[in-house]
């Protein structure tokens, strides 16, 4: 059994705050510990930033959909945009080194991959892209 919470918001940076609030409330309610909680919140925001920037091209008429699925042993978060996606299979094989000090961008996917237990990209049949993030609740509540 899972309980789902859905949040949809226009593709503008200023609403990321709101997603962060909701995310933190859900994480707290599920009993994730401080470090795991931080990792989830950071990753959800990275995925939402990508969805609104790269997916929806910051077009405020396009929404980003976030579904938080609270399962007994884990939190699954799905972030959907209406964009054309990208060649994620290839990208995931050659994630750039985030320590490269000359680059301002390109650390988001690396961070999600390191911080979450699962990171899955998917093209949606009706168009748009979905990023799925999973984090397990460890038995001691972490």
């Amino acid at each position: 059994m899972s309980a789902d919470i859905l949040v949809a918001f226009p593709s503008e940076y200023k609403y990321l705050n709101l997603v962060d609030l909701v995310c933190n409330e859900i994480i707290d309610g599920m009993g994730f510990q401080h470090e795991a909680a931080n990792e989830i919140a950071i990753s959800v925001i990275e995925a939402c930033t990508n969805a609104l920037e790269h997916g929806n091209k910051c077009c405020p008429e396009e929404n980003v959909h976030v579904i938080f699925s609270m399962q007994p042993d884990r939190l699954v978060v799905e972030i959907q945009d209406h964009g054309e996606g990208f060649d994620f299979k290839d990208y995931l094989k050659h994630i750039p080194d985030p320590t490269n000090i000359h680059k301002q961008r390109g650390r988001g996917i690396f961070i999600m991959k390191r911080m979450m237990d699962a990171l899955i990209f998917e093209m949606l049949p009706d168009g748009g892209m979905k990023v799925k993030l999973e984090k397990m609740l460890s038995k001691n509540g972490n």
Partner: protein
Amino acid sequence: MILDLHGKLMGGPDADNIRDLLHGIIDGGSKKIIVNLGGVNWINSTGVGILMTGYTTMRRNGGDLKLLNVSDRLQSILYVTKLNLIFECFDDEAEAVESFFRE
């Protein structure tokens, strides 16, 4: 020179503002800069990238950039991206200032 940042640090217009600020500081002759993040309540990887660009800009101009009052969340991002090896971070302003004189 201490630069107090406030609010959000996450790309979009923020990136340009901070680039301008840093260039202003360099043009003003300062080479050693401490970025106080105590007032930043919100940061993501793009925000970290902005700091990184600032760091590179300062180094290229013979200066340095250090961080003050790094939040837990930023700490996690720096750690995972190994940028903690690049940025010197301080919790105490006096210590941060002093570190420039010790070099």
